[in-house]
């Protein structure tokens, strides 16, 4: 059997986080005594604390590298949970633990417990992080326009007998995907009466070379069709976006519009990248 590299990465992330947690456990007095039978020397404990955090960082980096930032972090947290749970259930059964010491009965608490000064700074940082999470989420939510085709920067046009509105899903620069290929998502809506006559719509940059090479098809609900298209490295201020629409009666209609009109930020980004490469 040929193992999937992604499966191996998941296993690797899990194993490295297991090792990381084990090293962190060794760094504590309680667990190092339980695991080694004696409390390890402070220098060893410091070393294993550093090693532990380092391994957790490595597994995080591994996750981000293989799965991307969003999914990588999420799945890393998932594997951390499983790794720590595994140790929680293994430690009590650890075969080499020292015999349990006779502990003197606990004294009744007759004197007030020592008051630990509350770590105010740490608490403030934690509160700040919590607030920041909500703030970033709210900001992103505001940036997302649910009724995107009613925005002002959409392009209206006609293709054959049908009128349409076309706009980019996000106004900023394209998303860079596999093999450094820039990708852009578009939304399309036809007039309400037109919709019934339309079988499928396709979109691409540059004029279609043949009836087969017409680009990516729009998917999703007909009142907000979406297509994600890769952009060629040759995009410039004169590049055109070509829309091909096939009617239910079999007729094919095409129209084009300047890419710079629909995606000005994207065209500007290509020019900027070209300027940087030329240097």
């Amino acid at each position: 059997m040929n193992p999937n590299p992604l499966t191996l990465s998941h296993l690797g992330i899990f194993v490295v986080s297991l090792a990381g947690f084990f090293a962190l456990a060794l760094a504590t007095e309680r667990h190092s005594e339980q695991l080694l039978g004696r409390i390890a020397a402070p220098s060893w404990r410091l070393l294993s604390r550093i090693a532990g955090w380092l391994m957790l960082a490595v597994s995080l980096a591994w996750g981000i590298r293989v799965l991307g930032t969003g999914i990588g972090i999420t799945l890393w947290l998932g594997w951390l949970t499983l790794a720590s749970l595994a140790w929680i259930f293994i430690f009590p059964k650890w075969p080499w633990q020292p015999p349990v010491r006779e502990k003197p009965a606990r004294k009744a608490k007759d004197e007030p417990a020592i008051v630990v000064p509350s770590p105010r700074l740490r608490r403030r940082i934690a509160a700040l992080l919590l607030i920041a999470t909500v703030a970033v989420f709210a900001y992103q939510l505001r940036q997302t326009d649910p009724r995107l085709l009613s925005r002002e920067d959409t392009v209206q046009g006609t293709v054959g007998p049908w009128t349409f509105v076309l706009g980019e899903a996000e106004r900023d620069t394209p998303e860079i995907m596999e093999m450094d290929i820039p990708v852009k998502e578009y939304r399309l809506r036809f007039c309400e009466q037109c919709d019934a006559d339309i079988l499928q719509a396709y979109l691409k940059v540059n004029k279609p070379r043949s009836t087969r090479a017409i680009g990516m098809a729009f998917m999703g609900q007909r009142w907000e069709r979406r297509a994600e298209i890769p952009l060629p490295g040759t995009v410039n201020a004169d590049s055109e976006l070509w829309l091909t629409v096939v009617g239910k009666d079999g007729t094919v209609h095409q129209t084009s519009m300047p890419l710079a009109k629909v995606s000005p930020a994207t065209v500007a980004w290509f020019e900027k990248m070209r300027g940087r490469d030329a240097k």
Partner: protein
Amino acid sequence: MRNKALMQMLAASALLLPAAAALAHEPVAKCVLLDESTVRCRGVSNDGDEFADARMEVFALDGQLLHEGKLGKDATMTFTKPQQAFYVLFDTGPGLQVTVEQEEILPRPAGRVPSWMRTP
């Protein structure tokens, strides 16, 4: 492919990535000139997965099919550069395709290049 299903499930349920529309597996393709007369194209999904059994076609501008083949190692296809003007079509299914125009096919960039661009 159990972990892929898990990934998609997590990505969909976590709501962490409202902008990630990458789960549809749209094809992307890139071509380079290995030397003056050899072209190598690679076709994968936009999030980097290789399609088993995917094919790529090379057409002349008049529509004549010049070359066609199944993707091999690293999801690439290597072919002799046609004498006439051409374009490459990577079609993975209904409505899922990408065209690479001849003008986009450049010599390999200097410096470190991805392994699929390296010969053999």
